[in-house]
């Protein structure tokens, strides 16, 4: 196993802390390219590189937050890691096992270790099944005891997510959004997985409900030491739930680091812009974020990414080099790397970012 998550990125083998020497999850140069077809004959006309070489690792029991705007590839990253969509290339090691190499049969067995909570609880629960059969499904697939044992487990899981046991006999349509998401969580943790992808688990919910769900997720993590990948577009939320975060832009990680470093001193211009756009509810928070940075234009069409640094079309700092080559990840702190030429001594403007 590699001792650093960034061996594929030449310059930045950032010093990881002790836990990261033996991570629970390691992603190396993960790629997912979707082909584009054209014409009556459906000739391949190009591809969308939704995830284009992403590497990071997550220590056991930690939460890694993946943040980015729509189309940045964060959901595709999460889904490719679980092979819910087949990755084009790369390595995903979960608990020492390279998931990408598994055969279908092995993958099915391995799924008990890796689960997902989907974004929209209303469309990810079968409306014609009762809560009990929804939560029981993974238990049945993985031959978990007899029906009595399963019933007991379902009750236990409902307690865990703070739902009354009699909800077992309800249909999803009879539950509120927050309750449905609790069922989704109960289903995901039913088999005591080692790793769970949380794909925007609260973005369809009201804040007062969101807070409850987050607390439940944290309690479960604490009790069972589950490793989370938390995908969201909400930076303030991530600040509260993640230990380390990665900022994605057009299929690439542009900044990775521990949560306090990235929020305390964001290094990449895109991270700074994202942070500056957060709406806050107190003066204190207003001061804690960078001054508003307005980005030019919008996210470019992923079919026609700019050459070199993908962010350069919206960036306020542009060097000649940006168009020619993509910057590597530069080490910016004990656990913080950023993909920008501003950090390169060869370019003078870098000084202002110190």
């Amino acid at each position, binding site marked *: 196993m590699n001792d650093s998550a960034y061996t594929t990125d030449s310059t930045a083998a950032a010093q990881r802390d002790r836990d990261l020497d033996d991570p629970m999850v390691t992603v190396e140069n993960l790629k997912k390219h979707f082909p584009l077809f054209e014409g009556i004959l459906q000739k391949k006309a190009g591809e969308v590189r939704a995830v284009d070489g992403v590497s990071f690792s997550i220590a056991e029991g930690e939460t890694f937050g993946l943040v980015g*705007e*729509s189309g940045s590839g964060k959901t595709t990253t999460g889904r490719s890691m679980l092979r819910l969509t087949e990755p084009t290339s790369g390595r995903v090691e979960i608990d020492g096992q390279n998931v990408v190499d598994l055969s279908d049969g092995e993958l099915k067995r391995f799924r008990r270790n890796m689960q997902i909570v989907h974004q929209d609880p209303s469309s990810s629960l079968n409306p014609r099944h009762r809560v009990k059969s929804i939560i029981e499904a993974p238990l049945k697939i993985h031959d978990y005891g007899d029906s009595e044992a399963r019933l007991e487990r379902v009750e236990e899981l409902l307690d865990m997510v703070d739902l009354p046991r009699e909800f077992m006999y309800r249909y999803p349509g009879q539950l*509120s*959004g*927050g309750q449905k998401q609790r069922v989704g969580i109960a289903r995901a943790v039913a088999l005591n997985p080692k790793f769970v992808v949380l794909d925007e688990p609260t973005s369809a919910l*009201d*804040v*007062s*409900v*969101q*807070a*409850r*769900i*987050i*607390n439940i997720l944290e309690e479960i993590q604490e009790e069972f030491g589950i490793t989370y990948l938390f995908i969201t*577009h*909400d*930076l*303030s*939320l991530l*600040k*509260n*739930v993640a230990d380390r975060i990665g900022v994605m832009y057009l299929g690439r990680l542009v900044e990775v680091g521990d949560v306090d470093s990235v*929020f305390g001193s964001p290094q990449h211009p895109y991270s700074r*812009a*994202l942070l*500056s*756009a*957060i*709406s*806050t*509810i*107190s003066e*204190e*928070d207003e001061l*804690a*974020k960078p001054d*508003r940075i*307005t*980005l030019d234009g*919008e*996210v470019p069409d992923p079919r026609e990414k700019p050459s070199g640094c993908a962010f350069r079309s919206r960036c306020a700092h542009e060097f000649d080099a940006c168009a020619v080559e993509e910057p590597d990840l530069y080490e910016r702190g004990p656990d913080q790397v950023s993909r920008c030429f501003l950090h390169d001594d060869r370019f003078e403007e870098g000084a202002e970012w110190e």
Partner: protein
Amino acid sequence: MADPILEVKNLHVHFETHDGTAEVINGIDFTIERGETAALVGETGCGKSVTVKSIMGLLPSATIPEGEIRYKGEDVLSLSDAERHSRRGKEMSMIMQDPMTSLNPVLTVGEQMMDVLKWQGRPRLSLSKLVRDALSTGSKAEYRRRAIEMLGEVEISAPERVFESYPVELSGGMRQRVLIAIALLSEPDLLIADEPGTALDVTTEAKVLDLLDELVEERDTSVLYITHDLGVAREVSDRINVMYAGEIVEQAPTADLFANPQHPYTRGLLESIPTLSTGIGDGIEGHLPDYTDPPAGCRFADRCPHAEPACYDAYPYPRQTGPDHATACHLFSGTPARERHESLAAERVDIGTAPWLAGGDVAGGGDAPGDVSADGGTDQ
């Protein structure tokens, strides 16, 4: 204050459902002064959209058993359909929530914008108007020029091209700008913005909100801003009305509300919001009451950590808790904010003071019900 642009008084909105009458809006009052941006904040299902749709007259299936909606002093509820139609779009216009679905996909942006200019303030069908339009090419060119100019004002970089585009050819941020342009095209005096940023990415949302802010500032437009996000409300509004289950539970100037949130719901909501500095709270347990069978007393009592049995029975009329701050909660005493609640004030429900106010100075402590004489803020 004199001559507000919009006054909503004791508005009730009911819907007939299979389970009986749903009393969705239960006596709300609020005012928007000229040039002011007021926010209506609340979570899913609290009645924000029903409120604004009643103001716009876009709720054919609802009944309004009681209440007044005064636009520039005139009660719009007493107007005929045609009269309301003539004000909609021209005097007051609305930016809808979802930029993906609120533009017509089979018409170009230009056609949709020209429609506004062509039809604003006019009855639905007028033969003479149709004939006149067909004959005059001059006004058409003028409309086109105005529309393109407006697209430029919402900072669309190629207005001519966007004018000819169909909505599917535009990104979410662009569509939202087009919607803003359409809403402002007729120079309305009152703009209703229903969650205009929610469907957008954060960086785009921030930009669109800044732009909207600038445009209404320039035109001195009054804005009613609907949002579920207190953070956004803090950024855009001068006054905030917090709604819960069809009632306004707290209203105050924006700075005051954040400095001194009073209603347990407002406080619960604020604590639930993830922040950069203080972390995330516990959220609010439970859910909205059934609108077809709402509690007689406080609609929030079921979820309130401070609720006493009395809260379920006694209606918590909004009371003045400060010169310009009204809260609908029994934890606070004060003169009723509305005259119609004078009689209720006589039977004060004593459930003590808000526990977070150790000294109880803001609420006036557990004083006798009689401090009606205080600087009577019944002007709202």
